């Protein structure tokens, strides 16, 4: 494996992050704070505790996931879309690298950024509500697993997209609705029975449920299932990227 290439890509991507610090970090923190002001402080005080957890604290894992998913996808997709757009991808294609270097470099950087963001949001939340983390190790594991998986997913979108609209459409039209409906702001058990069944088709439900379990020890679905689903999705993304770099799909002519 070409470790120099991994380091070069990783550094390059992280430098890009720090160049656009406001956009990459400040804006998600700001929007999360707004959620807390509205849902946590203003409305939350009128909503009763769910599963014995105050509403303000209950929504923290869901909010972190909300930002994590959209930021991971956008970081992952931009990293590869921009070189494609500007033409600098010629260098990646002519370099002695394969999907492995690309994943470690681009996806590694995108996921690192997401993990940092997750921590930042948790710190921000601390300003508004008090919460505890029941299983810190699993909390970290979910944070990392989700960041990596959705950065991979974003990377695939970045390869597939041949215009800025396509780059936006999947996060906007699919991921955001799935996250909102995936129990960011409520427990699946609060839904009518039929909708509970339908909700289980939503992959984000497993992420949020597992993540919330790591905080408060309560979950909508089994934790093993949560991890299993995420890992399976991650593997599928890795295989897809491997295929892309073997065949040159959307990269080579």
């Amino acid at each position, binding site marked *: 494996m070409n470790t*120099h290439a991994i380091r070069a890509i990783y550094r390059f991507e992280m430098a890009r992050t720090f160049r656009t610090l406001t956009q990459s970090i400040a804006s998600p923190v700001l929007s999360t704070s707004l959620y807390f002001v509205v849902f946590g402080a203003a409305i939350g005080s009128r909503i009763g505790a769910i599963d014995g957890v105050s509403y303000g604290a209950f929504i923290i894992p869901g909010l972190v996931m909300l930002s994590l998913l959209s930021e991971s996808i956008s970081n992952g997709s931009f990293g590869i879309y921009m070189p494609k757009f500007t033409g600098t991808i010629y260098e990646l294609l002519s370099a002695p690298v394969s999907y492995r270097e690309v994943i470690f470099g681009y996806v590694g950087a995108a996921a690192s950024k997401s993990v940092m963001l997750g921590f930042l949001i948790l710190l921000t939340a601390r300003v508004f509500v008090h919460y505890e983390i029941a299983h810190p190790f699993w909390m970290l594991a979910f944070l990392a697993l989700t960041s990596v998986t959705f950065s991979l997913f974003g990377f695939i979108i970045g390869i597939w997209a041949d215009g800025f609209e396509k780059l936006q459409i999947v996060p906007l039209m699919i991921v955001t609705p799935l996250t909102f409906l995936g129990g960011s702001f409520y427990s699946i058990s609060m839904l009518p029975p039929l909708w509970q069944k339908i909700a289980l088709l939503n992959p984000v439900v497993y992420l949020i449920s597992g993540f919330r379990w790591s905080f408060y020890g309560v979950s909508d679905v089994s934790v093993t299932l949560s991890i299993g689903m995420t890992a399976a999705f991650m593997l599928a993304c890795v295989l897809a990227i491997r295929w892309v770099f073997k065949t040159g799909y959307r990269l080579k*002519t």
Partner: protein
Amino acid sequence: MTPVISIRGLTKTYASGFQALKNVNLEIHRGEIFALLGPNGAGKTTLIGVTCGLVNPSLGTVEAAGHDVVRDFRAARTKIGLVPQEISTDAFETVWATVNFSRGMFGKPRDAAYIEKVLRDLSLWDKRNAKIMTLSGGMKRRVMIAKALSHEPEILFLDEPSAGVDVELRHDMWQMVRKLRESGVTIILTTHYIEEAEEMADRIGIINHGEIVLVEEKTALMAKLGKKQLTLNLQAPLERIPDALSDYALELSADGGALTYTFDAQGEQTGIGAMLRRLNEHGIDFKSLQSSESSLEDIFVSLVKKKS
């Protein structure tokens, strides 16, 4: 001598169904400067693209430094540097950062001294901390060259290196290419400037409609096809060439106003002096004269015309 690049039976059919390369066979010798000439759309960039990994071949194989560029792409690509036809750079990066990035991408550990040398050779050292977007077009092209040289490649592809480059820089670039060749690097360049090929290349290949129509040593090519002509514009038009001059290869223009003498530029005796004296003896006076040499350009044009 084993070739440093060998292309066998290479065919490229694009998704559109267009065949950009048709059964191309080509060998590039180690350490030479090879100029690939051809009109727009001939397939030069496609050929380079397949060799460097930007284009999937449809049929055939390419080996670089003994490694198949598809099966053994890591080993092959480590040896190759590419300066593409289009300038594309990371606008927000500095020159220094982007050239070091390239070196890393090609699997080499950092080497500040070497990168400094490359930047100095390309007169970019003063600009090392400048963001690329603040550079002029010619400077950006030099940045692309620096990136391609950053990992000390054995083979360098220059796809139209002198497009959009001023005369002075072009000469600097020729100088640099010669220096690289001296250090053992094989250089393959494409160009539309025939003088560039004439000036630089050891061998010349001409490609047209996806087919290699000719590969020759430059000197052999020039000698074989290099003819000189002397044209005399006469004071008074002639009706026909006087018999006394029939032993010279003279041609009279249609209006009888000009005589053209063709001779071998490489020959010891051109016979020009004797012929001019003979003209004088016969009272044929001329207003002006000009000489021309059939250049690579004529050869190129005639080859490409013949084909299409």
